[in-house]
């Protein structure tokens, strides 16, 4: 159903934005994260040199890794024009299950947590793909439900018995790189490979860009959507494990901000919320940008509550750019 059906369409189009403007907004949408990251890093070198102390850089690297892992999942869901608000609940519940049950390595609890993550992802995907529930409502209901389950399970108490193998993943290093960052890089490479070089990757982009067209082309659209939600939940679980391994304990606040931050990272990295556009590298840049900004708030000695304002501001600005971009490109 295009505007071409109406006689005035040609007139409207000729008075629309110039191609140069469209291209500029498109480029801004794609390159916002790397460019902003460069600017922020330069500004940090001038105003907050403490940022570059090795200890702080390691902290930022680990935090960017955790956020980056969640953001990859969020990006997959955004690519199929969805949204997952249940990531922080899955992240917390998964960590709680693995950590409160064991001292050493136990395959059973890990499988248990994995099963729950897959279950939540499946439920999200089924609600969205089969019941046609708006994604934010479905995943938001799941957020409240899983969050409630976690509270009922822990009664709000923190637990501190993080098993050794998780500590290794969370704070260990291989050469100069933290293991958390390595985990992230492996996930990025895998996701990038799948998205770029396999049929499944092309299916994801096809479903997000034009659901109906993809369906007519024989893509199993609903299955693709469900798969993206499952992947997102599982990645959130992985991030939760890495994060708890890094922090060393699990409490009620673990993962609270990951909904806003993962969406902000993916969107500032060039993913549009209308689906079909976005890539892992941009998302990675978005995750680093956000982690650096949040860390700068701490290092510069600004009251911690401004972190909330920073992440909201990044989200709103990025959404504004991507909204404009999606609107202009979709004309």
């Amino acid at each position, binding site marked *: 159903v295009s505007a071409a059906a109406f006689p005035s369409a040609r007139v409207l189009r000729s008075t629309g934005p110039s191609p140069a403007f469209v291209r500029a907004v498109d480029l801004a949408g794609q390159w916002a994260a790397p460019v902003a990251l460069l600017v922020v890093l330069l500004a940090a070198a001038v105003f907050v040199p403490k940022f570059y102390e090795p200890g702080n850089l390691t902290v930022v690297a680990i935090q960017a890794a955790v956020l980056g892992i969640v953001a990859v999942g969020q990006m997959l869901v955004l690519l199929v024009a969805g949204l997952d608000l249940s990531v922080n609940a899955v992240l917390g519940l998964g960590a709680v299950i693995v950590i409160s049950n064991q001292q050493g390595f136990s395959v059973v609890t890990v499988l248990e947590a994995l099963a729950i993550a897959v279950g939540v992802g499946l439920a999200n995907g089924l609600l969205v793909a089969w019941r046609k529930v708006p994604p934010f409502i479905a995943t938001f*209901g799941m957020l409240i439900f899983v969050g409630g389950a976690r509270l009922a399970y822990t009664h709000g108490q923190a637990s501190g018995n993080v098993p050794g193998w998780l500590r290794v993943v969370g704070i260990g290093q291989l050469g100069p790189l933290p293991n958390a960052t390595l985990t992230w890089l492996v996930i990025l490479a895998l996701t990038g490979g799948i998205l770029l070089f396999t049929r499944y990757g092309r299916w994801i982009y096809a479903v997000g860009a034009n659901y109906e067209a993809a369906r007519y082309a024989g893509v199993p659209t609903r299955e693709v959507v469900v798969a993206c939600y499952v992947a997102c939940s599982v990645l959130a679980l992985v991030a939760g494990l890495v994060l708890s391994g890094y922090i060393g304990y699990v409490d009620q606040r673990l993962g609270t901000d990951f909904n806003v931050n993962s*969406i902000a990272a993916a969107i500032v990295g060039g993913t549009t919320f209308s689906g079909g556009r976005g890539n892992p590298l941009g998302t990675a840049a978005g995750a680093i940008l956000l982690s650096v900004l949040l860390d700068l708030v701490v290092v510069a000695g600004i009251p911690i509550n401004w972190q909330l304002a920073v992440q909201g501001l990044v989200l*709103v600005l990025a959404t504004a750019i991507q909204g404009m971009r999606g609107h202009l490109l979709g004309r």
Partner: protein
Amino acid sequence: VAGTASAIAPPAAAPRLGGWRLPIDGSIVFIYALVLLVGVGAGMYSERFRDPNNLTNVLRQTIVLGLLAIGQSLVILAGGIDMSVALIARLSTLVVAVLFGNNEALIVPLLAVGLAIGAALGLINGFIITRVYASPFIVTFGMFSILSGISLAIASGPVGKIPPAYLTLYDASLGPLPVSVVVMALIWGVVWMVTTRTRFGRALFAVGGSQRVARLSAINVPRTLIGAYVLSGLFAAAGGLFILARTGVGDPKMAEGLDFQSIVAVALGGMSLSGGRGSILGTLGGVLLLGVVANMFNILQVDSFFQQLILGLVVLITVATYRTGKTT
């Protein structure tokens, strides 16, 4: 998908000029039947629940959620969503609480200030959403973060000296009923009239049904949407100011979770969350149901952990039975 001409037809519930037909819709009958069922069940089970004082209390406790849910309904009817209502309520109220300084003469001006802040924040939301075509959900979600940062900067503990006269907003009663409940009933009535019988109300339905069709029908889409967000901010601020009259202190954690609850109330009331269909009376039913359930939770002293679990379950069930598509 929704670009059919039927999307801009007035809602089936709209009464003809001069007619007073009530919107008899399956989901509205269902929600009120549920309210009645839960209410009567609670009344038979618990003596404390059926105490008249408790019943007026239930009504009074639904005012805050009601105000937020009204704003939320207007935005959702127009095809948007406002995740920032609770934070708009909190921020405008904290500013008012800080400015009060136990000065009775400031009550009226500060009420105006609080409402103006709410409306202004709604205006910002609406402006961003309509000017850059950004997703309303994500913009208001980001606004949620920004406003929580700012409100923590204003206060991280209880603040403000509220003059006792201000608390009469909550306490004053008119015969057996609190004044606030009577006023709230009037507000529900006025909003219902506005949504069903005015040009703005029709525009809300039309824009929520299909922005393109609304635009082609010479409806000013941006102005309608901005109007909805401004009203949402205004009602949210009013809700916050009423909380202030109840607690008598600016609490930096106030209104927590009310954004979610307002959406749940709207969804329970059968309003289509993708816009264009539903009735404000359904939302009233949703608010009443949540109010009765919350009151029963308190009487039965249900663990707050399980309260959240049950709320989540309610949301999931509502969502799973969600009406798909836009054609009836």
